[in-house]
């Protein structure tokens, strides 16, 4: 018999907004699956990385993620303004006899330096964030961290994704929302689990998440968390759209309290553990088949 490799290599866990329980589901999956197959967990929610709070992590390494900022030599600059005009992000401005650089708006693209006819611009390397790698509860764990006050998260996500080990099922806890860092995390995943709440807010955000997953061509299924607190709008919409609902995790004060204390429901609540495993089975059956 021919042996087939696992179909699912990179699994993204995402949601249209934060606070839906996405991280708990991602961590829960990693914990539950690590007993039966090689897994790896990556926390790509670089603006608010939280997964480590539910794990017992030993960090073994750290890589810096850097970007560049222009610095202008006032001696060489003749105030021609070409750089100001060329910057697409409004990060340069002429103020009197000086070109000002707004570091928080700069994307580090290097265009200003490229267009300066007098070579008055040099670039300095500045930290943007870091990628930390380690071991958690018997599987490799990595996370990206964006420095406070920095605007562009995507390079940190890209740097994090370089830590993906092709011999393991990589579970990626994506940044919430539908912006660039979310796209950067979702792209290239084999499938996505979208976690939502059964409320009008949840439905509104789920719709956005589904359109992003569709846009980047990642097949997705839905996990309804805190089932029972709202209405059936999410279920009805998923049915209309033909999106499989993989699992419904009932609202349970015990689960909420465990989570609040930084304890992992996947470790301590059987209901939760069964739900995440059911979600994965559903994904393999209905989404990847």
């Amino acid at each position, binding site marked *: 018999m021919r042996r087939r490799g696992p179909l699912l290599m990179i699994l993204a866990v995402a949601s*249209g*907004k*934060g*606070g*839906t329980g996405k*991280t708990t589901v991602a961590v829960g999956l990693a914990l539950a699956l690590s007993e039966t197959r090689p897994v790896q967990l990556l926390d790509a929610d670089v*603006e*608010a990385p*939280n997964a480590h*709070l539910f794990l017992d992590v030993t960090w073994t390494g750290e890589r810096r993620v850097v970007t560049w900022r222009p610095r202008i030599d006032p001696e060489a600059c003749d105030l021609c303004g070409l750089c100001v005009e*060329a910057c*697409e992000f409004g990060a340069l401005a002429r103020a009197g006899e000086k070109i000002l650089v707004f570091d*928080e708006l700069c*994307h*580090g*693209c*290097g*265009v200003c330096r*490229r*267009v300066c006819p007098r070579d008055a611009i040099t670039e300095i390397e500045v930290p943007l964030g870091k990628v930390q790698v380690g071991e958690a509860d018997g599987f490799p764990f990595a996370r990206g961290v*964006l420095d*406070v*006050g920095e*605007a*562009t*998260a*995507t390079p940190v996500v*890209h740097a994090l994704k370089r830590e993906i080990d092709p011999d393991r099922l990589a579970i990626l806890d994506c*940044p*919430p*929302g*539908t*912006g*660039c*860092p979310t*796209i950067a995390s979702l*792209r290239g995943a084999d499938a996505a689990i979208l976690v939502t*709440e059964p*409320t*009008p*807010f949840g439905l*509104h*955000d789920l*719709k*956005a*998440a589904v*359109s*992003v997953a569709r*846009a*980047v061509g990642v097949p997705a299924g839905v996990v309804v968390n805190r089932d029972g*607190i*709202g*209405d059936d709008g999410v279920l009805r919409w998923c049915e209309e759209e033909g999106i499989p609902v993989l699992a419904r995790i009932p609202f349970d*004060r015990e689960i*909420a*309290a465990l*989570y*609040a*204390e*930084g304890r992992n429901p996947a470790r301590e609540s059987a209901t939760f553990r069964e739900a995440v495993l059911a979600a994965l089975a559903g994904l393999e059956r209905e989404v990847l088949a």
Partner: protein
Amino acid sequence: MNPPTIVFLSGKGGTGKTSVTAAFAVLGGHQVLADADVEAANLHILLAPRVEEQGEFEGSKVAIKDDSLCTRCGECREACRFEAIDEEFNIDPWLCEGCGACVHACPVDAIRLEPQVTGHWITGTSARGPFAGAELLPGEENSGKLVTLVRQKARQIASRVETPWVLVDGPPGIGCPVIASVTGVDGAVLVTEPTVSGLHDVERALGVVRHFGAPAALVINKWDLSPATAERIESWATERQLPVLARIPYDPAVPRAMVAGKSVVETDPEAPASRALRDAYARFRQLVLG
């Protein structure tokens, strides 16, 4: 004098930030309201504004290459710092930042930047006052410019009408959009949950707020899900001299109100959450208006 602008933040979504914003709006009676949570714009679900004006928003550009001119010299690929150009010199619009480095690098002018519609904005009237809001198209970058646009619209409205303040439902996270929502505001209300991660997130959010010199206050939502953690957050707040407006209990009346498209203080004024929200509002009012 300009009325003060107050932004509601959480460090991450899902802490009940929008529900708190909506409750304050209802209790405030009539004021200018803005939804700057442009990635997950939910405030309109509770406020149901009547749209008066709307428009498209061109938030970014993307590089487009004319293949008939391209000589495959590879200069563009070399110039791009965002790995958006592959070995075949195709430009990947998802990775393109729209910086134009390739445009400047191309010796035969085969590449140009084109503006893209990345979102929509509206202004209108809600039962709680004039409303400005915007939403990004799914998958578009939240550069902060749309947040800035919403705040401008709200400010324009505020200069024409009588309003005690401008309440802004801010974006989650700590990145560019949050910076855009925090710069120049008069105060920030941080909404957190009593979770270990909630504390971690709100700490980062407070970092941004203080970085920009705005005074802040805290609301601990669903505090009774973990009284011990709520206690920890409160002592953290005291240490950081961050006033706590109120602790709001977990209350099923809140999602029930949301399903009805309303704030809990309207649908169920005697619910425990509503009472706590009224306390929070009273302290907020005192802090902002004196």
